[in-house]
């Protein structure tokens, strides 16, 4: 685009000469007029253009057609171009016009501001509406989370301890997953974690509960190294480390009889890896499982069985008068695979004759019965049946009287069984190397005697137990204790394996999640030390070959075990 120009300012006008682009002549005229008048008004130079006083001042313009120049004075070669009334170019008028234009611009700007303000208000309103919508959305989001929380629960239960043995000996485990060496290892001590439940509960629908609880176990035992290539191998890492395995995994439906009767409300069916009817229930009744095992659990009965059961309270007018649990289970425990073509049945019935307002409250009487078989495949050699109770039937029974009050509880239990306590159970903490076939030691005869007395297929067990606790009022301390007297085979005269176990201690409730206890745990084979003739042992099972005349098992009574424990429970 070409530049348009007007040369000069007031000085050029005084010379009466203005340069204008020819092609935009008409526009230039108007602009020039305005500029000239403004200049004249400011300087008073317009005298030559003025008419007589009182008349309207006029501005006369001349043009040189040859050059296209415009002049304010006549001259040679110039012709009249136009005459403009000065009023038309009055500065006031121009100012007014400018003011009007400015005013119009202001009004336009104000209108735009108004429009913007209006739009802003509309946006603010929309934002408010959006905020309301978000607020309405939020409860739905919360509801989803709440709903999820209501369907899922996670918890943990951890037992830990430190234990010091003033006297070590063969015997059952004081707690699962802990072991101690046999005689001759006094002052043995250890820090342990004996339980680390991870409890997962899922509630997929009303009345349904899915529970999955892995728990630790110690990977004891020795495995051969793995061959790795033609000339290399990798050592076994089964070094007694703690591993996780499934403890509970079951589905429970707890509205089985809700429509039948109010008395049976809450009764449930469970299937999977489930708590058996006695052990877990009795642990809850006793309340100090983190310190020691309950009697049948200490002896042989696992706390968990794969199977199917039905259980629940019987309540009338909000009082519980009975509590039952009955089911069919594998003969194997939860940590072994099933080998039998039979199953075992277990049942427990607890009666509260005066009605219990809360679980276990008041006087209760409980009877438990278990009948099953050893976990042996059907085609196993029958020749071992006399020596191995696993191939015979197994029976366990318990009759209990218990009383539970707010601050104290007492349990008296009578146990009775058949083939329910083997050498493997007696030596679950540690036993003679001879029993496990890893070495021949001075306990070889004792080991054979134990096998003959306990694994002959006709053993009869009997026991009497007392458990209890007393909470010291206004303190966080509770005294507790367990006494167990057990005869592994009542058919053996003065059975050297008869024992008494007693546990006594004090528990400290730190807060709702933490408990500590300090206690003494003792296993005493209470008969006087003596010898047992091999011929007498062979009358139960022929474990000694050849002539037994004059031969005997010396030191047939095992040594006692005495230990101090500091226990800890974390429950969340």
């Amino acid at each position: 685009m070409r530049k348009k120009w007007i040369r000069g300012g007031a000085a050029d006008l005084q010379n009466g000469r203005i340069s204008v682009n020819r092609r935009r002549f008409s526009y230039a005229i108007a602009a020039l007029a305005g500029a000239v008048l403004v200049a004249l008004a400011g300087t008073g130079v317009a005298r030559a253009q003025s008419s007589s006083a009182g008349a309207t001042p006029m501005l006369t313009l001349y043009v040189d057609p040859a050059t296209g120049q415009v002049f304010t004075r006549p001259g040679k070669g110039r012709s009249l171009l136009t005459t403009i009334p000065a009023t038309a170019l009055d500065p006031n008028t121009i100012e007014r016009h400018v003011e009007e234009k400015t005013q119009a611009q202001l009004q336009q700007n104000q209108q735009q501001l108004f429009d913007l303000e209006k739009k802003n208000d509309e946006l603010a309103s929309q934002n408010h509406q959006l905020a309301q919508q978000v607020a309405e959305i939020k409860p739905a989001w919360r509801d989803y989370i709440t709903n999820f929380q209501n369907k899922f629960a996670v918890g943990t239960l951890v037992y830990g301890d430190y234990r010091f043995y003033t006297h070590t000996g063969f015997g059952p485990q004081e707690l699962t997953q802990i072991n101690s060496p046999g005689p001759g290892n006094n002052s043995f001590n250890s820090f342990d974690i004996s339980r680390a439940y991870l409890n997962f509960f899922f509630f997929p629908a009303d009345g349904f509960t899915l529970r999955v609880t892995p728990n630790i176990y110690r990977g004891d035992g020795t495995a051969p190294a793995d061959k790795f290539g033609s000339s290399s191998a990798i050592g076994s890492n089964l070094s007694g480390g703690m591993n996780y395995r499934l403890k509970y995994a079951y589905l429970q439906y707890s509205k089985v009889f809700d429509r039948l009767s109010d008395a049976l409300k809450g009764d449930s069916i469970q299937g999977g890896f489930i708590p058996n009817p006695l052990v877990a229930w009795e642990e809850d009744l006793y309340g100090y499982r983190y310190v020691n095992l309950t009697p049948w659990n200490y002896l042989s009965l696992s706390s968990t069985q794969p199977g199917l059961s039905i259980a629940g309270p019987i309540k009338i007018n909000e009082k519980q008068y009975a509590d039952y649990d009955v089911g069919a289970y594998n003969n194997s425990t939860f940590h072994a695979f099933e080998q039998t073509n039979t199953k075992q049945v277990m049942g427990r019935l607890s009666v509260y004759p005066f009605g219990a307002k809360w679980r276990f409250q008041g006087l209760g009487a409980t009877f438990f019965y278990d009948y099953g078989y050893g976990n042996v495949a059907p085609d196993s050699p029958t020749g071992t049946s006399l020596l191995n109770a696993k191939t015979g039937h197994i029976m366990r029974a318990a009759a209990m009287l218990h009383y539970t009050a707010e601050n104290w509880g007492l349990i008296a239990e009578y146990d009775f069984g058949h083939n329910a306590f083997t050498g493997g159970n007696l030596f679950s903490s540690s036993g003679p190397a001879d029993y496990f076939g890893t070495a021949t030691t001075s306990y070889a005869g004792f080991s054979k005697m134990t096998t003959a007395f306990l694994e002959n297929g006709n053993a009869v067990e009997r026991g009497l137990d007392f458990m209890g606790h007393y909470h010291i009022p206004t303190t966080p301390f509770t005294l507790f204790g367990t006494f167990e007297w057990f005869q592994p085979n009542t058919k053996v005269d003065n059975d050297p394996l008869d024992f008494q176990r007693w546990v006594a201690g004090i528990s400290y409730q730190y807060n709702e999640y933490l408990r500590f206890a300090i206690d003494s745990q003792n296993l005493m084979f209470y008969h006087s030390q003596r010898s047992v003739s091999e011929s007498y042992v062979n009358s139960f099972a022929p474990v000694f070959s050849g002539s037994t005349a004059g031969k005997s098992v010396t030191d047939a009574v095992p040594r006692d075990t005495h230990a101090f424990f500091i226990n800890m429970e974390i429950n969340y």
Partner: protein
Amino acid sequence: MKRVIIAGVLGFAMLAMTGCASSREQSQSEWIGKTRSDLSSEMGDPKGAVPMTDTGGEMLFYSYQGHHYVFETDADGKIDSATQVR
């Protein structure tokens, strides 16, 4: 042995009679469905807490404002039994 068993039975019978005579339990149904966190907020730490291995719940023993309570929670931590015992 028979003497021990008979003595035990008699002892329990006496305990039962004593317990029943002093029984003043009252249901606290307003707590049913609340959580153990709600309990802690109002009553603080329990004087006793025993995890229930078989149910996954807990027995909670409280002493609060001169009264004594026993609560049982379910696996979800919600109270399903509440009794004022004293």
